[in-house]
Each structure stands twice: as C-alpha cells, then as structure tokens.
C-alpha cells in the first residue's frame, strides 16, 4: 500500500486561544498513546504543540477516512474533549499541500508575526522529541530535515526575518546603525514604563555598557538601577549626566518638553560632538522635536518608531512572497525524492531477480562443460550479469524518466512489477477469462 502524508492542525487563524488551549498536545507521545500501532492506519507521526499552533503530521497507509478518524479520535481522546468540536476547527492537508504547509511553518511564513524566529526552534524540539519516541520514519525524517534547510534558505536569501517588528527592537536596531558596537556606550533612562524598560533591557542584551536611571522619585530610580545594574540619579541632575549618555530613553509624565534643543547644544559641546540618540516614548512628548535638527543628534518619538515597525512589517510581507517561491522549489525537490522512493525498491527487485536467474543459468551451463576451471566460471558469470544489466537498463531508464517527468511513476512501477512478476504471485492459468467474455 502506498504511503500518503497527512497534516492536521489548529492555528491562530482557525481557532481562538480557548480552543487551542483545550486541544494542546503538550507531552503527547504518539507511540504510547497508540496513534501508531502495528497494522494501524498511521505509520509515522510528529506532534508540534506551541501556544499559536497544534499540529499532527503523519504518514498513513490506509484510506484517508481511516487515518483521519484515527488521528482525530486519538487527539480528542488525549485532551478529553469532543472530536466534533476539534474537527470544526482543524485544517487538513495531504501530500504536496501538507509538505508545503510544514515548510511554510518552518520558514515562519505561517506565523502570527511573520518571520519570527522561534517557530523553527520549536519545530526542531518537536522533531527531536519524536525521534526519541521513535515515532518517525523515512518520510517524516527526510521531510523535517528538508523543512529546516528550506527555512535556512528563506532566511539567508530573503529579508523575511531581518528587520525589527517591535518598537523596542526597532530602537535597538537604530542604535546599532548609529553607534555600531554598543559596548562602549551608555544609555540614560528618564522616567519608567514598560516599553522604556523593555528597550533598556534589549540594549543591555545587545552589549550596552551601562544604564543611568533618572526618576522623579529617587527610590524608584534606585530600584530600577539595581535591576539593570546601573547608576541612579535625580531628575534634576539629568543635564549634569547627559554628556555621558549616548542613548536617551525618555518616558516621563511631564506635561511639556523637559529637554530642549538649546540644552542639547551645550551638552554636545561637552561631549565633543559625539552622536546622541534620543528615544521619546512619552505622550505628550518629553523632548523638543527641534533636537533632531542638530548635527549628530537623532530623535525618534513613539510614532516614528511605530512607523518603522509598520514599514518593516510591510517589508517582511513583500519578502514573504519571495520566500514562498523558495518554499515551492523545496517542496518540488521533496516530491521528486518521494516519487523516486517508490521507484528504487522496484529497481532493486528487478535487478536482483535478473541476477538470480543469471547465476542459476551459469551454474547449469558449467555442469555441462567437461572441465570448468575458475577462470571460465568468472568469464561466464561476467557475461551473464552484464547481459542482465544491459537488458534491464532500458526499462529502468524508462521508469526513472517517467518518475521525473510526471512526478510519479506509480502506474508504470506497478506495471513493471506485474510484467516481471516481481511480487512472485501465483497466477492462475486463466486469470482473466471473465474479462475476455465481456
């Protein structure tokens, strides 16, 4: 029976979070849960369960309905929920579509945040787990390896994951574009807030040397400084410390600008005109927009950063089209391999049957020779085997070409197996007598 690839899944597009939670497959083991059974409809399986998607990839050998029923029942059984509810929310792909879906998931083209890098790691973990549980076989192994390499290709050949798509990352990316290496630079955090702290954290993770924290209440400044292992200072002292700060993240609740272009002119002189990067997250703004007019000073407010993020997202969507083409190419390659898979056992069978016959005939002929020495035996064997090779060469080339050109040689492989009787079936003398009568 031929092998067919199936993929069942729920994701953020087809099911809301309650459903995804209900049908999560964390800790599901396809072997111990009897999804894979001897002589069962499913022979290989892989389970991916993350907060945005739950998917079962499997290879089945029986009719589609049986595979589907088996998978959905095992799945809903594990979660203790209604199989009908599950089947209302799942998507279901077979063969080429299933391969394409998996490759798109690996390349992060199906993610909520297009191009985010985590999914590939999650998929790798899922694969490692399934290998340990021995639930995968030839097809899924190859499929996963190919999904990883195609994901790598999309990442290096397109910019689908290259630009920042969150405000704090966008700020870090800009800082790197201005300063290069951040490990000789200081940032000053004026005021606090979730986004400002996140940006500070990202900067530190990217090698920033130190963070100065200024706050209206000194206790809060001290507390934050301790968290970031930095210095704390009073809000009144910021101008004293600004010459030391390369990156300034401001998010106070002040009702008017607290930093003006005139102030910065002095600061720049003290800094010997080394560049400064102001990130103004506050609404209303803390920093006078005229600051951006000064040479070597760059000012981004929350709207600017938001715009950068939007543009980057649009850029990623554009790149995703290119990435999808790469995925298609990789899917083609995988399909080609899949079809040759059906072919190779047939070729092996064909050649070994021919060789059997040849060697038998050599033995028989040797018996009829008066004095067969070692040399003669070798020559005759060579003759017989090369005859077999030459005779079977054309049919094999024919099968391979069909497989390449039509994507599958199933029907010809089947015919060849019948013509040469490779399955060693006993055929009755008048097997088709009824057909003739019709």
């Amino acid at each position: 029976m031929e092998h067919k690839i199936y993929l069942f899944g729920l994701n953020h597009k087809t099911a809301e979070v309650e459903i995804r939670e209900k049908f999560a497959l964390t800790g599901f083991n396809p072997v111990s849960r009897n999804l894979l059974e001897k002589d069962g409809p499913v022979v290989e399986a892989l389970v991916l369960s993350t907060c945005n998607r739950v998917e079962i990839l499997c290879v089945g050998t029986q009719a589609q309905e049986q595979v589907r029923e088996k998978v959905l029942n095992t799945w809903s059984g594990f979660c203790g929920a209604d199989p009908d509810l599950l089947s209302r929310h799942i998507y279901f792909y077979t063969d080429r579509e299933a391969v394409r879906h998996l490759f798109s998931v690996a390349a992060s083209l199906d993610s909520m945040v297009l191009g985010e890098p985590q999914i590939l790691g999650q998929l790798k973990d899922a694969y490692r787990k399934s290998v340990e549980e021995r639930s995968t076989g030839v097809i899924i192994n190859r499929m996963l390896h190919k999904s990883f390499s195609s994901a790598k290709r999309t990442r290096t050949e397109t910019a689908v994951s290259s630009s920042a798509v969150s405000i704090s990352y966008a700020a870090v990316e800009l800082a790197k574009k201005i300063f290069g290496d951040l490990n000789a630079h200081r940032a000053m955090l004026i005021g606090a807030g979730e986004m400002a702290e996140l940006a500070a954290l990202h900067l530190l993770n990217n090698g920033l040397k130190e963070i100065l924290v200024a706050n209206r209440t000194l206790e809060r400044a001290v507390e934050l400084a301790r968290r970031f292992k930095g210095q704390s200072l009073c809000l009144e002292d910021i101008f004293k410390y600004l010459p030391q700060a390369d990156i300034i993240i401001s998010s106070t609740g002040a009702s008017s600008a607290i930093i003006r272009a005139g102030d910065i002119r002095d600061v720049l002189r003290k800094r010997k005109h080394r560049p400064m990067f102001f990130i103004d997250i506050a609404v209303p703004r803390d920093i006078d927009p005229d600051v951006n007019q000064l040479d070597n000073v760059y000012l981004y407010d929350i709207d600017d950063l938001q715009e950068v993020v939007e543009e980057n997202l649009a850029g990623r969507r554009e790149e995703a089209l290119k990435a999808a083409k790469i995925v298609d190419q990789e899917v083609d390659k995988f399909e080609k391999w899949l079809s040759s898979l059906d072919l190779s056992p047939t070729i092996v069978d064909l050649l070994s049957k021919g060789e059997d016959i040849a060697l038998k005939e050599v033995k028989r002929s040797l018996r009829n020779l008066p004095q067969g020495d070692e040399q003669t035996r070798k020559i005759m064997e060579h003759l017989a085997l090369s005859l077999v090779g030459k005779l079977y060469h054309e049919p094999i080339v024919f099968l391979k070409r069909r497989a390449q050109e039509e994507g599958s040689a199933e029907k010809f492989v089947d015919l060849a197996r019948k013509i040469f009787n490779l399955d060693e079936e006993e055929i009755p003398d008048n097997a088709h007598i009824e057909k003739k009568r019709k």
Partner: protein
Amino acid sequence: MLSFRILDLFIALLYLSGAISFLIGLIYSRKKVQDVSVSLTLTGFVLHSVDLGLKYALGLGEVLTQSQFYISLLAWTFLLMFLLLWWRLKLKFLSLIAAPLALLIFTWSLAISPATLPVPGLLQGLWFGLHIGSLFVSIALMAMAFGAGLAYVHLDRKIKSKSRLGNVARDLPSLSTFDRANHWAVFIGFPLFTLGTLAGFIWAAFTWRTIFTWDPKEIFTVGIWFMFAWLFHKRATGGWKGKKPAQLAILIFVLSLISFIGINFFTETHHSLRP
C-alpha cells in the same frame, strides 16, 4: 614588453570584475558575492604589486621618468589604503569606491603613451620620492574618506528623516565606523599631505632655484592644504564629528581629483603629465 601588456590587461580585468561584482553583491545584499569580489580585487592588487616591482627592477631609473608609472602607482596606493582600512576597521564596504577608482586610474595609466618627465638629480631624488609617495598616500586616504563620507551622508539623511532603510542601507556598517574611517584619513592624511607638499617645494628649490612659481597646480594645492588644515584642526580640537567632516572630506577629494586630472593634463604647468 608584450608580456607586460598582457599582465596589465589582466590586472585591469581583475579590477573591473572586482568593481562590478561588488556593486552586484551590495545591491542584492549577497555576502558571498562581496567576498569573491574583494578577493578578485586583492588578486589584482598582488599582480599589480608584482607588475610595479618588475617594471622598477627591470628599467630602474628610466621608468621613474615616465608618467605612466606614477599613475599606475597611484592606483596601487588607492588599494593599499583600502586594504589598510579594511584590516583596521573591517570596512569591506569601501571596496565599492576603491576598486572602481583603481580600475579607472590604472586603465588611464595604460591608455596614455609614456611621457618623459624632468629627470630628478641624484640628491633631489629623495625629495621627489617623498613628494610623490606621501601625496599619493594622502590622496588615497582622502579617496577612502570620500567613499566613507558619501555613505555617512546617505545613512545620516536616512536616519534623520526616519525613512525606511533599504537593503543597501541595512547592510552598511554603522555611522560611527564611517566616522572612524574619516578620522584615520584626516589624522594620517593631513600630516602626509603637508610633508608631501613641503617636499615638493624643497625639490622645486633644488631644481628650479625658486620655491613658489605661481604654477596653477601649486596655487590649487595650497588652497586644498588650507581646507585640509581646517578639517584637521576642527577634528583635533574636538569640535567636529560625523556629518561636517564627512562633507568636507568629500569636497577635498573632489578638488584633489580635479587638480590631479584637470591641471596635470589640461593646463600649462610643470606638473604636466601630458605626453
């Protein structure tokens, strides 16, 4: 001589492929293409060194009186400075400016027929060598500052105006890297430029018994020297960083190029390289 002709053409071909492939690698942001391109340029540079060395060794004295040799040497110096900055600052990007410039100037050296310059006397040879050598290195450094300056101004404008960074801008090094290239070019280039100019005047004093001859080249060079001195002073005393030095470096290099090509070839001057 024919074998030299073939070697020269081969070098030019390497520079050409290096220049074109780097542009392609930059536009399509392919790191590998850029690496191949730099290796092509490097191979060209190595062969070019051999070429210059052989010409010097085989025709000692005689080749020093041919303008061809000096122009070829200038092309070689451009690449030498590019290599220096690449090594110190990892500024592979400057290959974009170095390879085409080397190609242009080297091809030009091939195109002109050998002209003979006034032969420097034995004693004056030292001053002449110093004049040529240090001026070439400083011009090559300014060429690198020119490339870095263009990139700086472009990137600075992009970031200031908050417009989207395209593929090329995204792959560019940071603003501070370009500023460091400018820093190097100014702090090494200016003293060499001064030294080279002074050596020229001293050589002139030996050769023509007068220091300043109101030659157009001399007037132009003194003008450039004052701009260069201004840039050096502003950087050294801590006033200038970033955009202004970048812009001034662009201006200084363009003027130097005008001086080198325009004056040496199209006006009556004793710096004439005309055949």
